[in-house]
């Protein structure tokens, strides 16, 4: 509403700038401008006198110049008399007033409705960032914190706040970086180190990298009883193929654990798979790349189970429903990466029998296997 009032005021001002001079009688003032050119020539005459006085021109030249200017002055005077005809006529005035009163606002409004976006409010960045949090999208909130952090890169608490948000947005790399900043500035803390390691692990498709491993180890050093980093370390041992050590680690972890804790089930399954008692449980499926984001909202322990059993899920699906040659390849590669050579060989055999009648796919699987150092025997 304020907007429309402002617009009306502006239009009113523009209309008045036309109407006011139209309605005012100018009779008293018209003479002056009509004589403007005469004033110029008169001044030129005066200038000649001055130049003569200074000796800049001689008398003869001055006289010639005077005649010339006087001629112009007379001509201007005559013309000034000649222009004094015509004058205001009411018909013309009415038309002009109509133009200002009607055409001007109509044209301006019409054109604006055509071109403008009257309802759209201003959105300066600062007020968008400072709006109450519940009105803001997550993106905006993140942008707000990011802005704060580019201005105050040494605010460790800020980094600690934004790190889990990145995690929930499915940006584990950014999350890991934020944790590492927080740690750099405020010193190491067990939870930050663990979460950083977790973020790095997720960023690497569930593989515990050396970097992540170092973080977990540091976390355990800070707080030997912490469960989560030890969980990941056990997982890392398993991934590296150090089976015995992994089992020992899982056992140590499960000792005296609260049986109701969510991670316990996952740990047991992992251990069971390592010891070979129960092959990958049918209730579990590994997280796909898209599920990583969702996973971070679950308890860390549950998520870990999903990650570690990703491969099992794939194997399950392939053995019951079958799959493309590429999927088989992926499974075999995953087993090899996880250090489960036996499982890989089994999968290869299964794949070869599934594609026995398709030579093209068969050779592709064989190629891939030989690259991984497996024989198709």
């Amino acid at each position, binding site marked *: 509403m304020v907007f429309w009032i402002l*617009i009306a005021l502006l239009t009113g001002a523009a209309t008045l700038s036309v109407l006011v001079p139209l309605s005012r009688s100018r009779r008293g003032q018209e003479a002056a401008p009509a004589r403007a050119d005469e004033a110029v020539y008169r001044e030129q005459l005066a200038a000649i006198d001055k130049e003569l006085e200074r000796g800049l021109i001689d008398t003869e030249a001055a006289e010639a110049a005077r005649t010339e200017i006087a001629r112009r002055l007379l001509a201007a005077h005559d013309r000034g008399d000649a222009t004094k005809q015509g004058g205001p006529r009411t018909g013309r005035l009415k038309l002009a007033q109509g133009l200002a009163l009607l055409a001007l606002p109509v044209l301006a409004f019409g054109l604006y409705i055509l071109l403008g976006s009257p309802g759209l409010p201003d*959105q300066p960045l600062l007020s968008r960032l400072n709006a109450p949090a519940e009105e803001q999208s997550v993106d905006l909130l993140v942008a707000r914190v990011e802005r704060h952090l580019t201005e105050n890169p040494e605010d460790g608490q800020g980094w600690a706040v934004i790190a889990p948000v990145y995690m929930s947005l499915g940006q584990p790399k950014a999350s890991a970086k934020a944790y590492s900043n927080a740690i750099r500035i405020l010193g190491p803390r067990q939870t930050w180190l663990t979460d950083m390691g977790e973020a790095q692990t997720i960023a690497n498709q569930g593989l515990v990298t050396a970097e992540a491993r170092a973080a977990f180890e540091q976390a355990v050093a800070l707080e030997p009883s912490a469960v989560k980093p030890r969980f990941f370390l056990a997982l890392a041992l398993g991934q590296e193929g150090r089976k015995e050590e992994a089992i020992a680690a899982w056992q140590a972890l499960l000792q005296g654990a609260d049986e109701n804790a969510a991670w316990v089930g996952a740990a047991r399954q992992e251990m069971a798979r390592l010891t070979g008692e129960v092959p990958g449980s049918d209730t579990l499926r590994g997280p796909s790349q898209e599920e990583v984001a969702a996973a971070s909202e679950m308890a860390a322990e549950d998520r870990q189970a999903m990650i570690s059993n990703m491969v099992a899920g794939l194997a399950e699906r392939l053995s019951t429903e079958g799959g493309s040659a590429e999927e088989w390849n992926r499974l075999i590669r995953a087993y090899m990466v996880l250090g489960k050579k036996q499982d890989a060989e089994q999968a290869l055999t299964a794949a070869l029998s599934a594609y026995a009648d398709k030579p093209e796919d068969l050779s592709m699987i064989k190629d891939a296997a030989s690259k991984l150092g497996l024989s198709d025997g």
Partner: protein
Amino acid sequence: MIVEFGHYALVLAFALTLVQSVLPIWGALQKDDRLMAVAPPVSVMLFVLVLLSFMVLTGAYLSSDFSVLNVVENSHSAKPLLYKFTGVWGNHEGSMLLWVLILVFFGALVGIFGGNLPADLRAVTLSVQAWVSAGFILFLLATSNPFTRILNPPLEGADLNPILQDIGLAIHPPLLYVGYVGFSITFSFAVAALILGRIDAAWARWVRPWTLLAWCFLTLGIAMGSYWAYYELGWGGWWFWDPVENASFMPWLAGTALLHSAIVMEKREALKVWTVLLAIFTFSLSLLGTFLVRSGVLTSVHAFATDPARGVFILALLCVFIGGSLSLFAWRASMLKQGGLFAPISREGGLVLNNLFLTAACAAVFVGTLYPLVLDAVTGEKISVGAPFFNLTFGPLMVPLLMAIPFGPVLSWKRADLGAACQRLYAAFGLALLLTLVTYWAWGMEKVLAPLGVGLAVWVMAGAMSEIVTRVKFFEIGFKRGFSRLVGLPGSAWGTAIAHFGIGLTVLGIVTASAFQDERVLTMRPGDTVELAGYQMTFEGAAPRRGPNYTEEVGHFSIRRGGAVVAELDPSKRIYTARQMPTTEAGIYTTGFSQVYLSLGEGRGDGAVDVRVYYKPLITLIWIGCVIMSLGAVFSIADRRLRVGAPKPARKRQQSMAAAE
């Protein structure tokens, strides 16, 4: 809401220009005072409206309102405040809005300060100005609307082209535009004069301050742009004969010619047809420049063909205004009466000569700028017209003009005695000859032309001063009375002398900086020293540095002369983060009027960098000369005689009229 308010103000301004286009001129033709009286207040209102919308756009930039498309495309929240501000006109839409703002600004100036003009001339002039304004506001609204909104604003903008993130951009385009667009008002005066059929000495007097004002700003704008390119591009060059530069230089040449021919028209009522034609040409060249820069033909003739909306629109405006005014000229010029007579050797003759050379030079620049474009469009053949072309054409045309400059002011009107004029210039000539010989003696015959160039520059400067000295007659009447005469000299005489002196300074700078410069290109490792023109420059090492929206690699150099450190220079290579675009920041040490110029090339990885070092003697005179030229224009505008004709109190007027009759 505020953004939309600014948008509406612009739309309303367009509607109001249409009213202004019709009522005052109609009033003038019907001799209706009331309709004519509409022009001044509406011209001010137009300025207020466009200023409002310009301020609103500026506000959107300052507050990083990314719901405005133009802001998204050209700004970034991390950009320093100054560049948020200058970024408003660092893009097509914003710069066109500035164009229009200056257009209506000049209209408002005539509306406010035009009290000394006859009512009909003022009314028609403002109507014509409104035609031009209407055309350009329509162009803005139809093809380049700066207020286009987006519904889902992004969180960050694309940033301003880094090369434009410089203090130079803050000053250069507004100055240039005030000059460029300022000639619109002389154009409007010329068209109004043709319509009303009043082209006389008084007209020339009235137009003179407006021409001077536009010329003054154009001179400053060109100089600023040249200095900006000099330190920002890192090539050490100050003029590239680039089409964009030529686009502003052509109106300058034509405007300079106009300035001089208008004097003849004012004093002798001669050269009327020519002066009016020049006024039309000058603004036409401004329009042409706008077309070249804004339509994209310079980037590619074919870009113009693929996205024709803008280009075709400006081309249409160009055709309407140039074609229309020339047709009007052809129709009305024949009724002009023959003006005053003069002998070939006279002040008038000198000014005609000035006009001939300036327009010929302007034509040479015109051909050099447009020939490649036309050839490409017609035959597809690609050529480049660079400095050699202009040196061969523009240069030889300037030399006789420069030689003639000192004669102009000392010749008398109508018929002059060349011998007497020469007598007054003996001293200046002697000084020029002396300095030429000194330069030959200092530099030997190795550079044949350069000392002659120095002599020419000194001739122009000394000639300009001797004009003042002879007018004051210091030697005849003694210092004390001479001084009072000096102060009493009219502003226009001072203006002439100062502007001509400035030209001489600029020429001196150009000659010395081009002929006597020293240049070295080399690879330097930390600790290396290079010697150039008596300065030892040591590369102390390079270090990275972070700016608000860029990172840079800064080379640190210390400059020594005779063992003592005289300056530390930090040239750098910058990378602007948002666009990942590199720029070069030169390090410049100014000593007297000369400069040491250092710019960095690509780093070599092992700590070594490629370095370009220049010593440019007296180079700052190029720009100082330009500033002095515009100072001359200021003196000339301040001449009280230009204000003659303003309405005086009634009683006084009657007295003076009685005295005249």
